[in-house]
Protein backbone atom coordinates (compact mmCIF):
# COMPACT_ATOMS: atom_id res chain seq x y z
CA UNK A 1 0.00 0.00 0.00
CA UNK A 2 1.67 3.22 -1.16
CA UNK A 3 0.99 6.78 -0.05
CA UNK A 4 -0.03 7.68 -3.59
CA UNK A 5 -2.40 4.77 -4.02
CA UNK A 6 -5.60 6.89 -3.64
CA UNK A 7 -4.53 9.05 -6.60
CA UNK A 8 -4.73 6.05 -8.90
CA UNK A 9 -8.53 6.08 -8.71
CA UNK A 10 -10.31 8.87 -10.60
CA UNK A 11 -13.29 8.87 -8.20
CA UNK A 12 -10.94 9.36 -5.23
CA UNK A 13 -9.14 12.19 -7.02
CA UNK A 14 -12.52 13.82 -7.71
CA UNK A 15 -13.45 13.28 -4.06
CA UNK A 16 -10.19 14.81 -2.84
CA UNK A 17 -10.62 17.83 -5.12
CA UNK A 18 -14.26 18.25 -4.04
CA UNK A 19 -13.43 17.95 -0.32
CA UNK A 20 -10.54 20.41 -0.60
CA UNK A 21 -12.73 22.97 -2.39
CA UNK A 22 -15.72 22.45 -0.07
CA UNK A 23 -13.48 22.53 3.01
CA UNK A 24 -11.93 25.83 1.89
CA UNK A 25 -15.32 27.26 0.95
CA UNK A 26 -16.87 26.31 4.31
CA UNK A 27 -13.82 27.73 6.10
CA UNK A 28 -14.15 31.02 4.19
CA UNK A 29 -17.92 31.42 4.67
CA UNK A 30 -17.57 30.14 8.24
CA UNK A 31 -15.60 33.25 9.27
CA UNK A 32 -18.62 35.43 8.52
CA UNK A 33 -21.06 32.90 10.00
CA UNK A 34 -19.18 32.65 13.30
CA UNK A 35 -18.41 36.37 13.62
CA UNK A 36 -22.06 37.26 12.94
CA UNK A 37 -22.98 34.72 15.63
CA UNK A 38 -24.95 32.83 13.02
CA UNK A 39 -23.65 29.33 13.72
CA UNK A 40 -27.19 28.20 14.41
CA UNK A 41 -28.48 29.61 11.11
CA UNK A 42 -25.77 27.68 9.22
CA UNK A 43 -26.78 24.52 11.01
CA UNK A 44 -30.49 25.17 10.43
CA UNK A 45 -30.11 26.13 6.78
CA UNK A 46 -28.20 22.94 6.05
CA UNK A 47 -31.29 21.06 7.23
CA UNK A 48 -33.67 23.39 5.42
CA UNK A 49 -31.89 22.83 2.12
CA UNK A 50 -32.89 19.16 2.26
CA UNK A 51 -36.48 20.24 1.60
CA UNK A 52 -35.32 22.09 -1.51
CA UNK A 53 -33.17 19.19 -2.64
CA UNK A 54 -36.03 16.68 -2.45
CA UNK A 55 -38.52 19.11 -4.01
CA UNK A 56 -36.13 19.67 -6.93
CA UNK A 57 -35.76 15.91 -7.31
CA UNK A 58 -39.52 15.28 -7.25
CA UNK A 59 -40.18 18.10 -9.73
CA UNK A 60 -37.30 16.95 -11.98
CA UNK A 61 -35.73 20.38 -11.51
CA UNK A 62 -31.99 21.07 -11.50
CA UNK A 63 -30.85 20.05 -8.02
CA UNK A 64 -28.27 22.82 -7.50
CA UNK A 65 -30.47 25.66 -8.74
CA UNK A 66 -33.57 24.43 -6.91
CA UNK A 67 -31.88 23.72 -3.59
CA UNK A 68 -29.91 27.01 -3.68
CA UNK A 69 -33.03 29.07 -4.37
CA UNK A 70 -34.86 27.16 -1.61
CA UNK A 71 -32.03 27.79 0.89
CA UNK A 72 -31.84 31.46 -0.12
CA UNK A 73 -35.59 31.90 0.34
CA UNK A 74 -35.41 30.22 3.76
CA UNK A 75 -32.60 32.63 4.80
CA UNK A 76 -34.64 35.62 3.59
CA UNK A 77 -37.74 34.33 5.38
CA UNK A 78 -35.74 34.01 8.61
CA UNK A 79 -34.44 37.57 8.23
CA UNK A 80 -37.96 38.86 7.49
CA UNK A 81 -39.47 37.06 10.48
CA UNK A 82 -36.71 38.27 12.79
CA UNK A 83 -37.26 41.87 11.70
CA UNK A 84 -40.74 41.72 13.24
CA UNK A 85 -38.86 41.83 16.57
CA UNK A 86 -41.52 39.89 18.47
CA UNK A 87 -39.90 36.66 17.33
CA UNK A 88 -36.24 36.02 18.18
CA UNK A 89 -33.80 34.88 15.49
CA UNK A 90 -33.29 31.49 17.15
CA UNK A 91 -37.03 30.83 17.24
CA UNK A 92 -37.47 31.94 13.61
CA UNK A 93 -34.62 29.64 12.53
CA UNK A 94 -36.15 26.78 14.53
CA UNK A 95 -39.57 27.18 12.90
CA UNK A 96 -38.53 27.77 9.29
CA UNK A 97 -35.65 25.33 8.95
CA UNK A 98 -37.33 22.42 10.72
CA UNK A 99 -40.51 23.00 8.68
CA UNK A 100 -38.42 22.94 5.52
CA UNK A 101 -36.59 19.81 6.68
CA UNK A 102 -39.98 18.23 7.43
CA UNK A 103 -41.11 19.00 3.86
CA UNK A 104 -38.09 17.01 2.66
CA UNK A 105 -38.90 14.06 4.92
CA UNK A 106 -42.58 14.04 3.86
CA UNK A 107 -41.62 14.04 0.18
CA UNK A 108 -39.06 11.28 0.74
CA UNK A 109 -41.65 9.11 2.50
CA UNK A 110 -44.12 9.81 -0.33
CA UNK A 111 -41.67 9.21 -3.18
CA UNK A 112 -39.64 6.17 -2.10
CA UNK A 113 -37.20 6.46 -5.01
CA UNK A 114 -35.20 9.17 -3.21
CA UNK A 115 -34.39 6.87 -0.28
CA UNK A 116 -30.95 5.84 -1.53
CA UNK A 117 -29.82 9.45 -1.90
CA UNK A 118 -31.24 10.33 1.50
CA UNK A 119 -28.29 8.77 3.33
CA UNK A 120 -25.90 10.64 1.06
CA UNK A 121 -27.72 13.91 1.77
CA UNK A 122 -27.55 13.35 5.51
CA UNK A 123 -24.02 11.98 5.88
CA UNK A 124 -22.29 12.85 2.61
CA UNK A 125 -21.00 10.48 -0.04
CA UNK A 126 -17.67 11.50 -1.42
CA UNK A 127 -17.49 8.43 -3.66
CA UNK A 128 -20.62 9.60 -5.45
CA UNK A 129 -19.10 12.94 -6.55
CA UNK A 130 -19.45 13.17 -10.31
CA UNK A 131 -17.67 15.40 -12.79
CA UNK A 132 -20.80 17.58 -12.86
CA UNK A 133 -20.76 17.89 -9.07
CA UNK A 134 -17.12 18.94 -9.18
CA UNK A 135 -17.92 21.63 -11.77
CA UNK A 136 -20.80 22.92 -9.58
CA UNK A 137 -18.55 22.97 -6.49
CA UNK A 138 -15.83 24.83 -8.43
CA UNK A 139 -18.29 27.41 -9.79
CA UNK A 140 -19.82 28.12 -6.35
CA UNK A 141 -16.38 28.27 -4.70
CA UNK A 142 -15.08 30.69 -7.35
CA UNK A 143 -18.24 32.84 -7.16
CA UNK A 144 -18.19 32.97 -3.34
CA UNK A 145 -14.47 33.80 -3.28
CA UNK A 146 -14.98 36.54 -5.89
CA UNK A 147 -17.95 38.09 -4.07
CA UNK A 148 -16.16 38.06 -0.72
CA UNK A 149 -12.96 39.41 -2.30
CA UNK A 150 -14.63 42.27 -4.16
CA UNK A 151 -16.81 43.13 -1.17
CA UNK A 152 -14.05 42.49 1.38
CA UNK A 153 -14.17 45.95 2.99
CA UNK A 154 -17.97 46.08 3.00
CA UNK A 155 -18.36 42.57 4.42
CA UNK A 156 -15.74 43.32 7.11
CA UNK A 157 -17.49 46.52 8.24
CA UNK A 158 -21.00 45.01 8.10
CA UNK A 159 -19.84 41.94 10.04
CA UNK A 160 -18.04 43.99 12.68
CA UNK A 161 -20.81 46.52 13.34
CA UNK A 162 -23.78 46.40 10.98
CA UNK A 163 -25.42 49.53 12.40
CA UNK A 164 -22.31 51.71 12.18
CA UNK A 165 -21.65 50.32 8.69
CA UNK A 166 -25.13 51.49 7.64
CA UNK A 167 -24.42 54.95 9.05
CA UNK A 168 -21.20 55.09 7.02
CA UNK A 169 -23.15 54.33 3.84
CA UNK A 170 -22.32 50.62 3.45
CA UNK A 171 -25.25 48.97 1.61
CA UNK A 172 -25.90 46.48 4.40
CA UNK A 173 -29.16 45.25 2.84
CA UNK A 174 -27.29 44.13 -0.27
CA UNK A 175 -24.55 42.62 1.83
CA UNK A 176 -27.13 40.54 3.75
CA UNK A 177 -28.81 39.37 0.54
CA UNK A 178 -25.53 38.45 -1.14
CA UNK A 179 -24.38 36.63 1.96
CA UNK A 180 -27.62 34.61 2.14
CA UNK A 181 -27.13 33.61 -1.51
CA UNK A 182 -23.50 32.59 -0.97
CA UNK A 183 -24.44 30.70 2.20
CA UNK A 184 -27.24 28.79 0.46
CA UNK A 185 -24.94 27.91 -2.46
CA UNK A 186 -22.22 26.76 -0.08
CA UNK A 187 -24.57 24.49 1.83
CA UNK A 188 -25.99 22.97 -1.35
CA UNK A 189 -22.62 22.06 -2.87
CA UNK A 190 -21.34 20.84 0.51
CA UNK A 191 -24.21 18.37 0.95
CA UNK A 192 -22.71 15.71 -1.31
CA UNK A 193 -19.33 15.84 0.42
CA UNK A 194 -20.19 16.42 4.06
CA UNK A 195 -23.92 15.79 4.42
CA UNK A 196 -26.41 18.19 6.01
CA UNK A 197 -25.66 16.91 9.51
CA UNK A 198 -21.94 17.74 9.34
CA UNK A 199 -21.85 21.01 7.37
CA UNK A 200 -22.19 23.03 10.58
CA UNK A 201 -18.92 21.54 11.91
CA UNK A 202 -17.04 22.41 8.73
CA UNK A 203 -18.26 26.01 8.82
CA UNK A 204 -17.65 26.61 12.53
CA UNK A 205 -14.41 24.80 13.44
CA UNK A 206 -11.92 26.35 10.93
CA UNK A 207 -12.77 29.98 11.79
CA UNK A 208 -12.55 29.23 15.52
CA UNK A 209 -9.13 27.64 15.07
CA UNK A 210 -8.02 30.60 12.95
CA UNK A 211 -9.34 33.03 15.56
CA UNK A 212 -7.25 31.30 18.23
CA UNK A 213 -4.17 31.88 16.10
CA UNK A 214 -4.69 35.45 14.91
CA UNK A 215 -6.17 38.80 15.97
CA UNK A 216 -6.31 40.19 12.43
CA UNK A 217 -9.46 39.79 10.32
CA UNK A 218 -7.50 39.35 7.10
CA UNK A 219 -5.33 36.63 8.64
CA UNK A 220 -8.37 34.87 10.14
CA UNK A 221 -10.03 34.77 6.70
CA UNK A 222 -6.90 33.37 5.01
CA UNK A 223 -6.11 30.91 7.81
CA UNK A 224 -9.68 29.63 8.10
CA UNK A 225 -9.88 29.00 4.34
CA UNK A 226 -6.54 27.20 4.36
CA UNK A 227 -7.45 25.11 7.44
CA UNK A 228 -10.77 24.11 5.87
CA UNK A 229 -9.12 23.11 2.59
CA UNK A 230 -6.29 21.13 4.23
CA UNK A 231 -8.67 19.36 6.64
CA UNK A 232 -10.98 18.51 3.72
CA UNK A 233 -8.08 16.94 1.83
CA UNK A 234 -6.64 15.13 4.86
CA UNK A 235 -10.09 13.91 5.97
CA UNK A 236 -10.82 12.21 2.64
CA UNK A 237 -7.27 10.90 2.35
CA UNK A 238 -7.49 9.32 5.81
CA UNK A 239 -10.99 7.96 5.20
CA UNK A 240 -9.63 6.07 2.17
CA UNK A 241 -7.23 4.08 4.33
CA UNK A 242 -9.42 3.73 7.42
CA UNK A 243 -12.58 3.06 5.40
CA UNK A 244 -14.90 5.31 7.41
CA UNK A 245 -17.48 7.97 6.53
CA UNK A 246 -15.81 10.77 4.55
CA UNK A 247 -17.82 13.71 5.91
CA UNK A 248 -17.39 12.57 9.50
CA UNK A 249 -13.64 12.12 8.98
CA UNK A 250 -13.26 15.69 7.65
CA UNK A 251 -15.07 17.09 10.71
CA UNK A 252 -13.09 14.85 13.09
CA UNK A 253 -9.79 16.02 11.56
CA UNK A 254 -10.93 19.63 12.11
CA UNK A 255 -12.00 18.83 15.69
CA UNK A 256 -8.59 17.21 16.36
CA UNK A 257 -6.85 20.31 14.99
CA UNK A 258 -9.02 22.50 17.21
CA UNK A 259 -8.01 20.45 20.27
CA UNK A 260 -4.32 20.71 19.37
CA UNK A 261 -4.47 24.47 18.74
CA UNK A 262 -6.47 25.04 21.93
CA UNK A 263 -3.85 23.12 23.92
CA UNK A 264 -1.05 25.08 22.20
CA UNK A 265 -2.70 28.44 22.92
CA UNK A 266 -3.26 27.52 26.59
CA UNK A 267 0.32 26.31 26.96
CA UNK A 268 1.64 29.46 25.28
CA UNK A 269 -0.44 31.59 27.66
CA UNK A 270 0.86 29.76 30.73
CA UNK A 271 4.46 29.97 29.55
CA UNK A 272 4.08 33.67 28.87
CA UNK A 273 2.63 34.19 32.36
CA UNK A 274 5.46 32.21 33.95
CA UNK A 275 8.08 34.28 32.08
CA UNK A 276 6.42 37.52 33.20
CA UNK A 277 6.21 36.33 36.80
CA UNK A 278 9.86 35.29 36.76
CA UNK A 279 10.87 38.65 35.30
CA UNK A 280 8.83 40.45 37.97
CA UNK A 281 10.48 38.56 40.82
CA UNK A 282 14.05 38.69 39.46
CA UNK A 283 16.52 40.94 41.33
CA UNK A 284 16.97 43.17 38.24
CA UNK A 285 13.27 43.97 38.20
CA UNK A 286 13.34 45.30 41.74
CA UNK A 287 10.57 42.94 42.79
CA UNK A 288 10.21 41.02 46.03
CA UNK A 289 13.51 39.26 45.44
CA UNK A 290 15.54 42.47 45.51
CA UNK A 291 18.29 42.60 48.13
CA UNK A 292 19.61 46.01 49.03
Amino acid at each position, binding site marked *: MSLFEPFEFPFIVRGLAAATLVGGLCGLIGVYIV*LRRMAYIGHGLSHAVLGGAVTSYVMSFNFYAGATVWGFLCAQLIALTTRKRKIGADAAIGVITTASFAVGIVLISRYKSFTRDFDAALFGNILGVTGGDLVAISVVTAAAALIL*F*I*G*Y*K*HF*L*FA*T*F*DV*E*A*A*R*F*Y*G*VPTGWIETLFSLVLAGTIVVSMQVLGVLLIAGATVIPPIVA*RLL*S*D*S*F*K*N*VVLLSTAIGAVCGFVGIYVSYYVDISSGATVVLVEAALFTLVMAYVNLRGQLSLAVRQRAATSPDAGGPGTVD
Partner: protein
Amino acid sequence: MLHPLPHHRDQGEAIVRLQDVSCGYGKQEVLSGVSLDIMPGDFVGLLGPSGSGKTTLLRTVLGAVDVYRGQVLVEGTSTGRRRPKVGYVPQLETIDWNFPVTVREAVMMGRTMDNRFLPWYRRQDRMLADEMMERLGISHLAPRHIRELSGGQQQRVFLARALVSGPRILLLDEPTSGVDMKTRDDVMHLLHEINHQGITIIMTTHEINAVAVHLPWVICMNGKVLAEGPPSSVITSETLKRTYGAEMPVIHYRGMTLVAESPHSFTRISEPPSGADVGADGEPEPEKEVELV
Protein backbone atom coordinates in the same frame (compact mmCIF):
# COMPACT_ATOMS: atom_id res chain seq x y z
CA MET B 1 -12.98 75.94 28.94
CA LEU B 2 -10.40 73.32 28.08
CA HIS B 3 -9.16 74.81 24.85
CA PRO B 4 -7.00 77.95 24.97
CA LEU B 5 -8.99 79.51 22.13
CA PRO B 6 -12.63 80.43 22.76
CA HIS B 7 -15.28 78.33 21.08
CA HIS B 8 -16.32 79.73 17.71
CA ARG B 9 -19.97 79.50 16.76
CA ASP B 10 -20.79 80.36 13.17
CA GLN B 11 -23.85 82.38 12.34
CA GLY B 12 -25.92 81.90 9.23
CA GLU B 13 -27.07 78.57 7.79
CA ALA B 14 -27.57 75.75 10.31
CA ILE B 15 -25.59 72.57 9.57
CA VAL B 16 -28.27 70.46 11.28
CA ARG B 17 -31.85 71.68 11.33
CA LEU B 18 -34.81 69.88 12.86
CA GLN B 19 -38.17 71.48 12.15
CA ASP B 20 -40.98 70.30 14.44
CA VAL B 21 -39.76 66.71 14.15
CA SER B 22 -41.65 63.80 15.68
CA CYS B 23 -39.91 60.48 15.20
CA GLY B 24 -39.33 57.01 16.64
CA TYR B 25 -39.23 53.36 15.73
CA GLY B 26 -42.23 51.71 14.12
CA LYS B 27 -45.28 52.77 16.08
CA GLN B 28 -43.29 53.94 19.09
CA GLU B 29 -42.82 57.70 19.08
CA VAL B 30 -39.70 58.70 21.01
CA LEU B 31 -39.28 62.39 20.18
CA SER B 32 -42.09 64.82 19.60
CA GLY B 33 -42.10 68.35 18.24
CA VAL B 34 -38.34 68.82 18.27
CA SER B 35 -37.06 71.99 16.64
CA LEU B 36 -33.33 72.62 16.70
CA ASP B 37 -30.67 74.55 14.84
CA ILE B 38 -27.10 73.36 15.22
CA MET B 39 -24.64 75.77 13.67
CA PRO B 40 -21.35 74.90 11.94
CA GLY B 41 -18.62 74.61 14.57
CA ASP B 42 -21.00 73.90 17.44
CA PHE B 43 -19.96 71.53 20.20
CA VAL B 44 -23.23 70.30 21.67
CA GLY B 45 -23.91 68.00 24.60
CA LEU B 46 -27.24 66.19 24.83
CA LEU B 47 -28.36 65.64 28.40
CA GLY B 48 -31.29 63.63 29.65
CA PRO B 49 -32.23 60.49 31.55
CA SER B 50 -32.10 57.01 30.03
CA GLY B 51 -34.86 56.65 27.45
CA SER B 52 -35.15 60.41 26.97
CA GLY B 53 -34.31 60.16 23.28
CA LYS B 54 -30.67 61.32 23.22
CA THR B 55 -29.50 58.45 21.06
CA THR B 56 -32.67 58.72 18.98
CA LEU B 57 -31.81 62.36 18.28
CA LEU B 58 -28.38 61.26 17.03
CA ARG B 59 -30.03 58.59 14.91
CA THR B 60 -32.44 61.22 13.57
CA VAL B 61 -29.49 63.22 12.29
CA LEU B 62 -28.12 59.99 10.78
CA GLY B 63 -31.43 59.38 9.01
CA ALA B 64 -31.93 56.08 10.84
CA VAL B 65 -35.34 56.57 12.47
CA ASP B 66 -38.92 56.78 11.24
CA VAL B 67 -39.85 60.45 10.95
CA TYR B 68 -43.62 60.91 11.39
CA ARG B 69 -43.77 64.68 11.16
CA GLY B 70 -41.46 67.57 10.36
CA GLN B 71 -38.21 67.73 8.46
CA VAL B 72 -34.58 66.89 9.22
CA LEU B 73 -32.02 68.80 7.20
CA VAL B 74 -28.31 68.04 7.37
CA GLU B 75 -26.11 70.43 5.39
CA GLY B 76 -29.24 71.69 3.70
CA THR B 77 -30.41 68.28 2.44
CA SER B 78 -33.28 66.25 3.87
CA THR B 79 -32.12 62.99 5.45
CA GLY B 80 -35.11 61.35 3.77
CA ARG B 81 -33.59 62.13 0.36
CA ARG B 82 -29.94 61.38 1.00
CA ARG B 83 -28.10 59.77 3.90
CA PRO B 84 -25.85 62.48 5.36
CA LYS B 85 -22.08 62.08 5.46
CA VAL B 86 -21.30 62.26 9.15
CA GLY B 87 -18.76 60.59 11.40
CA TYR B 88 -20.34 58.31 13.98
CA VAL B 89 -18.68 56.98 17.13
CA PRO B 90 -20.78 54.28 18.82
CA GLN B 91 -20.91 53.47 22.52
CA LEU B 92 -17.92 51.31 23.41
CA GLU B 93 -20.33 48.91 25.15
CA THR B 94 -21.81 47.99 21.77
CA ILE B 95 -18.46 46.86 20.31
CA ASP B 96 -17.72 43.14 20.00
CA TRP B 97 -14.28 43.10 21.63
CA ASN B 98 -13.62 39.50 20.64
CA PHE B 99 -13.95 40.31 16.95
CA PRO B 100 -10.59 39.69 15.25
CA VAL B 101 -9.68 43.18 14.16
CA THR B 102 -6.52 45.22 14.65
CA VAL B 103 -6.43 48.95 15.35
CA ARG B 104 -5.38 49.63 11.75
CA GLU B 105 -8.20 47.48 10.33
CA ALA B 106 -10.76 49.23 12.56
CA VAL B 107 -9.56 52.70 11.54
CA MET B 108 -9.49 51.77 7.84
CA MET B 109 -13.21 50.89 8.00
CA GLY B 110 -13.85 54.64 7.89
CA ARG B 111 -12.52 54.64 4.29
CA THR B 112 -14.79 51.82 3.09
CA MET B 113 -17.10 53.93 0.97
CA ASP B 114 -14.53 56.34 -0.46
CA ASN B 115 -13.49 53.90 -3.18
CA ARG B 116 -16.34 51.48 -2.92
CA PHE B 117 -15.60 49.43 -6.03
CA LEU B 118 -12.01 48.58 -5.11
CA PRO B 119 -11.61 45.50 -2.91
CA TRP B 120 -8.52 46.93 -1.27
CA TYR B 121 -7.63 50.27 0.32
CA ARG B 122 -5.63 52.69 -1.83
CA ARG B 123 -2.24 54.00 -0.80
CA GLN B 124 -3.69 57.43 0.03
CA ASP B 125 -6.34 55.76 2.24
CA ARG B 126 -3.63 53.98 4.21
CA MET B 127 -1.60 57.20 4.46
CA LEU B 128 -4.65 59.09 5.70
CA ALA B 129 -5.30 56.42 8.34
CA ASP B 130 -1.64 56.52 9.40
CA GLU B 131 -1.76 60.32 9.71
CA MET B 132 -4.97 60.16 11.76
CA MET B 133 -3.57 57.50 14.10
CA GLU B 134 -0.43 59.62 14.50
CA ARG B 135 -2.55 62.68 15.29
CA LEU B 136 -4.56 60.82 17.90
CA GLY B 137 -1.47 59.19 19.42
CA ILE B 138 -2.33 55.61 18.57
CA SER B 139 -0.01 54.94 15.63
CA HIS B 140 2.22 52.69 17.77
CA LEU B 141 -0.84 50.52 18.49
CA ALA B 142 -1.73 49.92 14.81
CA PRO B 143 -0.96 46.16 14.73
CA ARG B 144 -2.52 45.48 18.15
CA HIS B 145 -5.94 43.95 18.71
CA ILE B 146 -8.55 46.50 19.81
CA ARG B 147 -9.26 44.63 23.05
CA GLU B 148 -5.66 45.10 24.22
CA LEU B 149 -6.07 48.88 24.55
CA SER B 150 -7.14 51.08 27.44
CA GLY B 151 -10.58 52.74 27.41
CA GLY B 152 -9.15 56.06 26.21
CA GLN B 153 -7.15 54.39 23.45
CA GLN B 154 -10.21 52.42 22.34
CA GLN B 155 -12.20 55.64 22.16
CA ARG B 156 -9.43 57.16 20.00
CA VAL B 157 -9.57 54.22 17.60
CA PHE B 158 -13.25 54.82 16.88
CA LEU B 159 -12.70 58.58 16.74
CA ALA B 160 -9.97 57.96 14.16
CA ARG B 161 -12.34 55.72 12.18
CA ALA B 162 -14.92 58.50 12.15
CA LEU B 163 -12.41 61.21 11.24
CA VAL B 164 -10.75 59.38 8.32
CA SER B 165 -14.12 59.44 6.55
CA GLY B 166 -13.68 63.24 6.34
CA PRO B 167 -16.90 64.34 8.05
CA ARG B 168 -17.99 67.91 8.83
CA ILE B 169 -20.20 66.59 11.61
CA LEU B 170 -19.17 64.15 14.32
CA LEU B 171 -21.78 62.29 16.38
CA LEU B 172 -20.69 60.53 19.55
CA ASP B 173 -22.87 58.27 21.66
CA GLU B 174 -21.71 58.49 25.27
CA PRO B 175 -18.00 58.80 24.49
CA THR B 176 -17.03 59.07 28.16
CA SER B 177 -19.09 56.28 29.68
CA GLY B 178 -17.18 53.62 31.55
CA VAL B 179 -13.84 55.43 31.59
CA ASP B 180 -11.97 56.97 34.51
CA MET B 181 -11.81 60.72 35.15
CA LYS B 182 -8.35 61.19 33.61
CA THR B 183 -9.37 59.35 30.44
CA ARG B 184 -12.59 61.33 30.31
CA ASP B 185 -10.64 64.57 30.47
CA ASP B 186 -8.25 63.34 27.77
CA VAL B 187 -11.16 62.47 25.50
CA MET B 188 -12.81 65.85 26.11
CA HIS B 189 -9.52 67.66 25.35
CA LEU B 190 -9.24 65.71 22.13
CA LEU B 191 -12.81 66.53 21.14
CA HIS B 192 -12.10 70.21 21.74
CA GLU B 193 -9.07 70.01 19.46
CA ILE B 194 -11.20 68.38 16.77
CA ASN B 195 -13.96 70.95 17.25
CA HIS B 196 -11.46 73.79 16.88
CA GLN B 197 -10.47 72.36 13.52
CA GLY B 198 -13.97 73.19 12.29
CA ILE B 199 -15.84 69.94 12.91
CA THR B 200 -19.30 70.24 14.44
CA ILE B 201 -19.71 67.82 17.34
CA ILE B 202 -22.90 66.47 18.89
CA MET B 203 -22.49 64.05 21.79
CA THR B 204 -24.78 62.34 24.27
CA THR B 205 -23.69 61.87 27.85
CA HIS B 206 -24.93 61.18 31.36
CA GLU B 207 -22.13 63.18 32.93
CA ILE B 208 -23.66 66.54 33.70
CA ASN B 209 -20.56 67.95 35.35
CA ALA B 210 -18.34 67.08 32.41
CA VAL B 211 -20.80 68.85 30.13
CA ALA B 212 -21.05 71.85 32.46
CA VAL B 213 -17.29 72.23 32.64
CA HIS B 214 -16.20 71.34 29.12
CA LEU B 215 -18.98 72.05 26.61
CA PRO B 216 -20.04 75.44 25.25
CA TRP B 217 -23.61 74.39 24.37
CA VAL B 218 -26.04 72.05 26.11
CA ILE B 219 -29.44 70.63 25.16
CA CYS B 220 -31.58 69.15 27.93
CA MET B 221 -34.21 66.76 26.69
CA ASN B 222 -36.80 64.25 27.75
CA GLY B 223 -38.90 63.20 24.79
CA LYS B 224 -38.63 66.79 23.58
CA VAL B 225 -36.18 69.65 23.96
CA LEU B 226 -36.63 71.26 27.37
CA ALA B 227 -33.82 73.81 27.29
CA GLU B 228 -30.75 74.73 25.28
CA GLY B 229 -27.92 77.19 25.59
CA PRO B 230 -24.60 77.63 27.40
CA PRO B 231 -24.24 75.42 30.50
CA SER B 232 -24.20 78.40 32.84
CA SER B 233 -27.73 79.36 31.80
CA VAL B 234 -29.17 75.88 31.11
CA ILE B 235 -27.87 73.86 34.03
CA THR B 236 -30.11 75.03 36.82
CA SER B 237 -31.96 73.10 39.51
CA GLU B 238 -35.23 73.89 37.81
CA THR B 239 -34.17 72.65 34.36
CA LEU B 240 -32.57 69.54 35.84
CA LYS B 241 -35.73 68.78 37.78
CA ARG B 242 -37.79 69.10 34.58
CA THR B 243 -35.27 66.93 32.72
CA TYR B 244 -34.57 64.20 35.25
CA GLY B 245 -37.57 64.54 37.58
CA ALA B 246 -35.25 64.80 40.58
CA GLU B 247 -33.91 67.51 42.84
CA MET B 248 -30.31 68.27 41.91
CA PRO B 249 -28.46 70.96 43.84
CA VAL B 250 -26.44 73.21 41.52
CA ILE B 251 -23.27 74.75 42.88
CA HIS B 252 -21.39 77.65 41.37
CA TYR B 253 -17.77 77.49 42.40
CA ARG B 254 -14.91 79.57 41.02
CA GLY B 255 -16.72 80.22 37.77
CA MET B 256 -17.72 76.58 37.30
CA THR B 257 -21.23 75.17 37.37
CA LEU B 258 -21.36 71.89 39.26
CA VAL B 259 -24.20 69.53 40.03
CA ALA B 260 -23.99 67.78 43.38
CA GLU B 261 -24.71 64.10 43.87
CA SER B 262 -28.05 63.82 45.63
CA PRO B 263 -27.57 62.29 49.06
CA HIS B 264 -29.98 59.61 50.27
CA SER B 265 -30.13 60.89 53.81
CA PHE B 266 -29.87 64.10 55.79
CA THR B 267 -26.46 65.63 55.33
CA ARG B 268 -24.93 68.63 57.00
CA ILE B 269 -22.74 70.79 54.85
CA SER B 270 -20.56 72.13 57.62
CA GLU B 271 -17.84 73.90 55.71
CA PRO B 272 -18.57 74.82 52.12
CA PRO B 273 -15.42 75.36 50.08
CA SER B 274 -14.06 78.85 49.99
CA GLY B 275 -15.89 80.94 47.43
CA ALA B 276 -18.68 78.39 46.95
CA ASP B 277 -22.24 79.54 46.61
CA VAL B 278 -24.58 76.68 47.22
CA GLY B 279 -28.12 76.85 45.95
CA ALA B 280 -30.29 76.98 42.94
CA ASP B 281 -29.01 79.22 40.20
CA GLY B 282 -26.04 80.50 42.09
CA GLU B 283 -27.90 82.35 44.80
CA PRO B 284 -25.66 82.52 47.86
CA GLU B 285 -27.15 80.53 50.67
CA PRO B 286 -26.14 80.20 54.28
CA GLU B 287 -24.99 76.96 55.81
CA LYS B 288 -27.99 74.63 55.90
CA GLU B 289 -29.21 71.10 56.00
CA VAL B 290 -29.95 69.51 52.63
CA GLU B 291 -32.75 67.06 52.42
CA LEU B 292 -33.40 64.79 49.48
CA VAL B 293 -37.03 64.06 48.96
